[in-house]
């Protein structure tokens, strides 16, 4: 079984995000980059399927040079090879362009299942997996929390408000992974060492023959407004504090 996992390198959830002065993007200085956690669920699921059914796991990522690190992380977890789509023209690419780059790369290799994270935690768009499935012309199941693959079929469980959907689809298909699908493994040290020597193909837009013209673009990025510091209501007695609170709510917060 040949499995492809699309991964994206994103800033660590705890990283301090500073928006560039001109609002064109974020300042990347001092940021710790990690694999998008939802993609990690995809990698883990792919490895599990491989361990059960045999085959290869290929990691595909669109991103600048530093994204190679994330591909290596997935290789350290146990994937066989990587495809690194690195083209300055793709920097800040929209979901459609990213998906078409991924699709072009994936079309060239055998793929029974393609995993994506349900969304990337940086832009929270959640579109790439779906567009990718369309471009590949294969079925998709999104936000999957449980997956079984047997007899050329995938049976996926997807949680919806108050219920669970069990969706069956033929292969090949695109699965977008949600939290709960699995617990991603910790890479072993031999895995980390071996990953350094595993093959990673680097491709650019020209090699893939895709158009880099964006369909959507970020107009401006702004930091959220600074939160005003909290206030501790003073006073000795409870009654006194309550009076203070009422006063503040009425006069300062103007909510009552």
């Amino acid at each position, binding site marked *: 079984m040949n499995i492809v996992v699309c991964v994206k390198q994103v800033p660590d959830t705890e990283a301090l995000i500073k928006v560039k002065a001109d609002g064109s993007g974020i300042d990347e200085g001092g940021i710790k980059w990690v694999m998008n956690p939802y993609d990690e669920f995809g990698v883990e699921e792919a490895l599990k399927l491989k361990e059960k059914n045999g085959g290869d796991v290929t990691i595909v990522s669109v991103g600048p040079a530093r994204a190679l690190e994330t591909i290596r992380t997935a290789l350290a977890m146990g994937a066989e090879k990587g495809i690194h789509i690195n083209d300055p023209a793709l920097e800040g690419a929209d979901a459609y362009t990213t998906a078409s780059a991924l699709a072009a790369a994936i079309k060239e290799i055998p793929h029974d299942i393609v995993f994506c994270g349900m969304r990337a935690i940086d832009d929270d768009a959640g579109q790439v997996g779906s567009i990718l499935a369309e471009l590949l012309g294969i079925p998709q199941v999104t936000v999957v929390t449980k997956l079984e693959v047997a007899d050329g079929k995938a049976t996926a469980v997807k949680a919806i408000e108050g219920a669970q959907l069990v969706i069956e689809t033929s292969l090949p298909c695109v699965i977008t992974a949600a939290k709960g699908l699995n617990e991603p493994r*910790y890479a*072993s040290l031999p895995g980390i060492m071996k990953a350094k020597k595993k093959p990673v193909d680097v491709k650019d837009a020209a090699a893939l023959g895709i158009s880099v013209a964006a369909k959507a673009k970020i107009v401006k990025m702004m930091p959220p407004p600074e939160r005003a510091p909290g206030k501790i209501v003073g006073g000795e007695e409870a009654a006194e504090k309550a009076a203070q609170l009422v006063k503040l709510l009425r006069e300062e917060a103007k909510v009552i």
Partner: protein
Amino acid sequence: MAHGGEHVLKVGNEGREVFWNAPYEGILFFFTAIALVIFAYGIYRRWQMWKAIGLPENRTDNAGERFKALIMNGLFQVKTFREAYPGIFHGLIFFGFLVLIFGAAIDATQFHIGLPFFHGGFYLWFSLIMEIFGLAVLIGIVMAIMRRYIFKPDFLGYKGVPDNRPDDAIVLVGIGAIIVTGFIIEALRLHVNINVDGFTWGDWSFVGYALSKTLAGVSYDTTRILHKITWWVHSFITLGLIAYLPFSRLLHIFTTPANYYMKNLEPTGTLKPIADFENAESFGAGQLEDFTWKQIFDSEACTRCGRCQDGCPAYISGKPLSPKKVIQDIKTYWLERAPSVLAAGKKTKEGEEAAIPEPDKAMVGEVIDLHELWACTNCMYCMEHCPALIEHVPKIVQMRQYKVLMEADFSPELQLTYRNMENNSNPWGIGAHMRGDWAKDLGIKTLAEDPDVEYLFYVGCSGSFDDRGKKVSVAFAKILKEAGVSFGILGEEEGCCGDSAMRGGNEYLYQTLAQMNIETMNGYGVKKVVCTCPHGYNALKKDYRHFGGNFEVFHHTEILADLIAKGKIKLTKPVEGLFTYHDSCFLGRYNDIYNQPRQVLGAVPGMRMVEMKSNRAKSFCCGAGGARMWMEEDIGERINDMRTDQAIDVKADTIAVGCPFCLTMMSDGIKDREKEENMKAFDIAEIVWQSMAVEKETDAGTPPE
């Protein structure tokens, strides 16, 4: 020389004849030879087995220091005497036998060569000394028997099940029998002398003499027969024990002193770093073969005395771990495996094809249960108190390394911790950029701003990110400022010390973290470092030197004690209450810092101090060491609660600590025991700051009420 006969007078203060009445010297020598051959074979066989499995390790360098360890612990029994009861009985048996063997040697020399002084007064004194030490051995044996079979302390068994093996009984009874038959022989000999004119020397052999009085009325001939029988019984038991020695617990007579000589000369608790990640094929110890021969030999020096288990916080709190069991399980497994490895090696030598048999079970997971492996807090109690100088902790860490590095099979909580340490250089995964935030409004400079300072205050993760820990950092920093000490911090540039990664088996992560810190510190030319966290303190002081980090490292209690002694800070404001000091393992047992914290507390006016049941070298761990801080504790009782109980027992109202992990653990313990109303835990720095009558705008450390 004529043996036997009627010349009874010769066995008085004239000296005695060794073979009086037992004229079968030839037979005795024959059996002695057999016993020695068996003994020699046993030792040879064992020697072969010791060599069969294990990686090389040099434990014979620096002979002087090693010899000292051998003399102190072997001859003077220093470690063994640390525990009164077993120390005494072992001392009685050990010194008793030492003298008896010496005496026997004199006896034999006298017989074969003849000693001119072996009669008269000298002989009487000799008799008396032999008598006393013979009795000493007997008392020792009785004490040992009583302990093992009557008092039955738990530490001789495991979880309430005694671990008394036939070997134990054979040895105890055997030694006892040698002494008892010795006394009986003497009694019988004296009995025939009693009627001799001028018999005055009985009291010099007071045990035998007393015993001989029970023989009143026994005829001369009967006495002779009895003497003959007892003499042979005595000889056979002795020879039997000699032959049996290599196959029994008595082997420790050789292996334990050998272990003293081969002791670890590195500072307490240092772990040998993995040298080459790129080219090594396996990491940690997954099989016996991954240990060094010395690590396996350790288990041969173990006497199952149980001292390690007796104070092991994991064991006491009901976890399956017992350091004694770990060592014994390794031994049992080695005894299973060594002969087949040895046989294969022999065949190969003889030119035959013989592959070393594959292990039939996983050492980590099957021989050593994973719950045992992960229960260890690295508290160092076992190694501190093991009278055989066995090194439990490195073995445990190496087995963890195997699980983490090779198999990546360990608890999800710890995986998360490691990811956090990888991504944000702290176990909580709080944004690394926030590391220096605690110091923002205190006017403390970073080394980037001013590298020209005496001390680097290495704050550590707790002191930087944990709300409680931050208060300690603030208090300590304010004290330093007040005392005019020149210091700076690394701020954002500081990283996690890596102790939890190292002790949790993630040596790769640890080395990565250590190297980053060392690079930063060396970049600023750091010479002196002060830490408020004993884990960082220990790692920076002892482990960083392996990677080019050579700093003079201090714990803040050392600095505080010094500042107080030099009068640089004045503690004037009384801090009332009954305080107890909890010795952190990484300060106490790891670094011998027992006094400084107590000195500091002693200088605080108004304070009353009380010691908990377990203190100093016997301190009871808080439960957080060895990466346990980050793991669930779901077996048995919580270690921190048990420690808190000790503080409650002595009615302390404040637990003073010198470690942020301990601070968390003790604070949680107080909560768990619902004592928050009348009990608190504070770091020593907070108490000191409280006692310094400095005008305080906003209070740094939460002051003790």
